[in-house]
């Protein structure tokens, strides 16, 4: 409750103070807000508080995902601090909307029933649409439009799914749904299954599972880089949090969704990885990589919550760090919002050695190479899925990672190849962005070497058995 309120207050402050203070001050305030919210989350740890009759529950699941969200948002703000002006995004509204979106994402993570989740999701999505379109350019608008249209379709599907689930169970609360689905009545089951599948589709739109992923590449590459960073990390984390709550907690007993999910995951992994193989623009590559990672993340989701939950949480954290790190490097170095083409990256190591190494670390982590955390994330996801009996799926995912390695490898290696052309990167000052990069790189490395730092916190299976709430 408190963390959400703090971010909300921050958002309001950013909205109103935007008229009186310079943008950077607003950004600082926003960051302070996020930190405060994080602190309040830490104090709530193990508290297991609920409010509004269980509509909001601050259990450890919510808190850990909330912290991931805050981390991603903080990195976004850090990056925006000095690149927003270049990206023509230097409005206080950007910070305000960002915080509103964060509020929404936290609502999802803390949600205890479908309606709260829906509100959070929409607050997040709506702010997201605006953020994506905020930059006054054709690219951003086009990206935002696609995002919006498909996102709206996703929302509608989701809402219809919620309606059907409500019809089948007579309740919105996760606990209620779980209890109701424990002893299924026959006449309701078809309703329930259809509802669950619609929910799955709706969430599929939000997290970009394969047949519903079309907006992703356009959005992540068309929107300003900072925005791409935010949307591909925080928003995705939140959508997964929602899925975790709904499918891992409330609807664990509902039949059929898991098998459909399997198909979606296969499609996602195949399409995401194959799509990324043929990209020539780094931003688009990252976009497809985000799709591919969705598949891996969903793999953890599919598994039994006791193992899949911590795996998903850890993976989300790592995913946030490495994706944000990569985008941050991109934001620091790019001259235009189109980002780099892969050719631009040739020889980056000799022009900006530190950035290149940082990017290489992020890419290696994304590719799942040890000792970086991406490996552990992938490993945990595979293990969770494997233990849940999805052996074939795990094999397919492993094959997908091979493709993934190749397309991450190409840019990573190109950076280290000699190149005589003059620098094409943006030369200016960019300390805060660098801070974000450092955060990402250090996080990825430390968590890779000592995964237990994060995993140990969430690994207690007890907190995952009450995913739906008490």
């Amino acid at each position, binding site marked *: 409750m408190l963390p959400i309120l703090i971010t909300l207050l921050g958002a309001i402050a950013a909205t109103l103070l935007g008229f009186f203070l310079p943008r950077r001050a607003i950004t600082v305030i926003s960051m302070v807000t996020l930190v405060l919210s994080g602190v309040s989350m830490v104090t709530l740890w193990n508290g297991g508080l609920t409010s509004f009759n269980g509509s909001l529950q601050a259990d450890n699941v919510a808190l850990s995902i909330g912290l991931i969200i805050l981390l991603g948002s903080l990195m976004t703000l850090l990056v925006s601090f000095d690149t927003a002006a270049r990206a023509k995004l230097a*409005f206080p*509204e950007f910070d305000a909307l960002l915080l509103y979106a964060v509020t929404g994402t936290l609502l999802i993570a803390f949600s205890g029933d479908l309606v709260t989740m829906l509100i959070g999701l929409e607050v997040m999505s709506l702010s997201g649409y*605006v953020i994506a*379109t905020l930059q*006054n350019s054709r690219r951003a608008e086009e990206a935002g439009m696609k995002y919006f249209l498909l996102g709206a379709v996703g929302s509608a599907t989701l809402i219809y799914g919620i309606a059907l689930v409500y019809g089948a169970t007579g309740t919105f609360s996760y606990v209620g749904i779980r209890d109701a689905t424990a002893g299924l009545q026959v006449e309701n089951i078809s309703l329930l299954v259809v509802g669950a599948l619609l929910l799955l589709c709706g969430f599929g739109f939000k997290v970009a599972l394969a047949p519903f992923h079309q907006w992703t590449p356009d959005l992540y590459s068309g929107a300003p880089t900072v925005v791409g960073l935010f949307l591909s990390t925080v928003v995705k984390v939140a959508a997964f949090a929602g899925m975790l709550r709904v499918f891992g907690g409330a609807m664990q007993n509902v039949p059929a969704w898991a098998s459909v999910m399997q198909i979606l995951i296969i499609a996602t992994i195949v399409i995401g990885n194959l799509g990324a193989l043929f990209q020539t623009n780094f931003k688009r590559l990252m976009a497809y990589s985000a799709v591919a990672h969705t598949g891996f993340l969903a793999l953890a989701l599919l598994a039994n919550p006791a193992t899949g939950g911590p795996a998903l949480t850890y993976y989300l954290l790592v995913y946030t760090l490495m994706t944000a790190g990569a985008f941050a490097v991109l934001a620091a170095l790019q001259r235009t919002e189109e980002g780099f083409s892969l050719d631009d990256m040739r020889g980056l190591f000799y022009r900006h050695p530190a950035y290149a190494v940082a990017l290489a670390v992020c890419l290696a982590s994304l590719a799942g190479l040890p000792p970086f955390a991406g490996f552990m994330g992938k490993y945990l996801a595979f293990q969770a899925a494997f233990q849940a009996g999805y052996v074939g799926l795990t094999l397919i995912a492993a094959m997908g990672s091979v493709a993934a390695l190749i397309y991450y490898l190409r840019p990573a290696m190109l950076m280290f190849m000699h190149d005589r052309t003059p620098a094409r990167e943006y030369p200016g000052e960019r300390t805060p962005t660098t801070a974000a990069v450092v955060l990402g790189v250090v996080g990825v490395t430390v968590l890779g070497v000592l995964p237990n730092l994060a995993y140990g916190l969430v690994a207690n299976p007890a907190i995952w058995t009450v995913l739906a709430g008490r």
Partner: protein
Amino acid sequence: MPDTAWWLDLLWTVVKGVLVALALLTTFAYMTLIERRLLARMQIRWGPNRVGPMGLLQPLADAIKSIFKEDLRITKADQLVYTLAPLIAITCALTAFGGIPAGPAGSFFGLNPWVYSLDVGVIGLLAITSMGVYGIFLGGWASGSKYPLLGGLRSAAQIISYELGMGLSILGLLMLVGSASFQSIIGWQATNGWLIVFQVFAFATFLVSSFAEVNRTPFDLPEAEQELVAGYLTEYSAIKWALFQMAEYVNMITASALMATLFFGGYKGPVFLDGLIPGISNWPFIWLILKIAFFLFLFIWVRATLPRLRYDQLMRFGWKLIFPLSLANTVITGFYLTYFRGAGLWPLGILGLIGLVLLIVMSDRARRLWNTPTHRPDAERPAASRPVGGD
């Protein structure tokens, strides 16, 4: 009502509906006449007095003229919408009135003196009336011409702006009554006294909003001849034009009825008259019609008295004055009800009165809110890059 006679029920409803519609149309017809006469009187001239005795047949003549006039079809218009628009306008206008009770239940020859009744009568009525804006906007758009388009836009903007003030101003009232059905509101007033007493401030804002809602002076910008020829009506003629006019007047009647019902006890007369003629306060129709007549007169009176606002003033007036004021009224009422309910209701009336007086005293300052031309040179603007709501 037994289930078996649903068709009978339906039949009676239809009959009542037709009656109401006819009554409204007749009122509309004579309203035009009365308005012209009254205006003329106020401006010290005669007004129509040729057709029939005292010009009483003038409305009939007008009607015949409208019907037999050529129905122009503008080449650039979107024919379907062009035809549909006045229909929407009049339908909404007529429908809205049906929900207002004209007497106690069963007082109309054993039937209920209303066409339909909803639990959320006030809200339903507001909803239906606000649908009328489609008629106006679509009419303006479908004409395929510039003046109507702008006129339609303007009036749509105006109507929706004042819709807010209107909707908000009755909130305090609803809080007091605790129900949104007309029956309960009237019943509450019968026991506790007219709501105007307790919600005088709300009434003020409601009244102003009603004027704007029905596009009457001083808010009849959409039809401002000097600026936009005849607004959304420019390309309309004959019966369609008449329908729009009709809708406007019917809306006026509805607004009057609404004000009467919400703030002036509805179909109930003053209770003290019961002492003279027992039961007089419960006579159907008569009280409502009287009250409506009073408000209609007010409409005409104001038209004769006040000048028209400029469009920017109009919008600012709605957004910066009416909207916050009605909100404030709501909050104050809410606060009072929560913490001083035990003290009775009359202080609320005094509070409202004080507010109104304050507003009038401070009217010069208040006016600055909406009346100052806020022309800012472009250079002063924060670079146009600041997006507003996504533009």
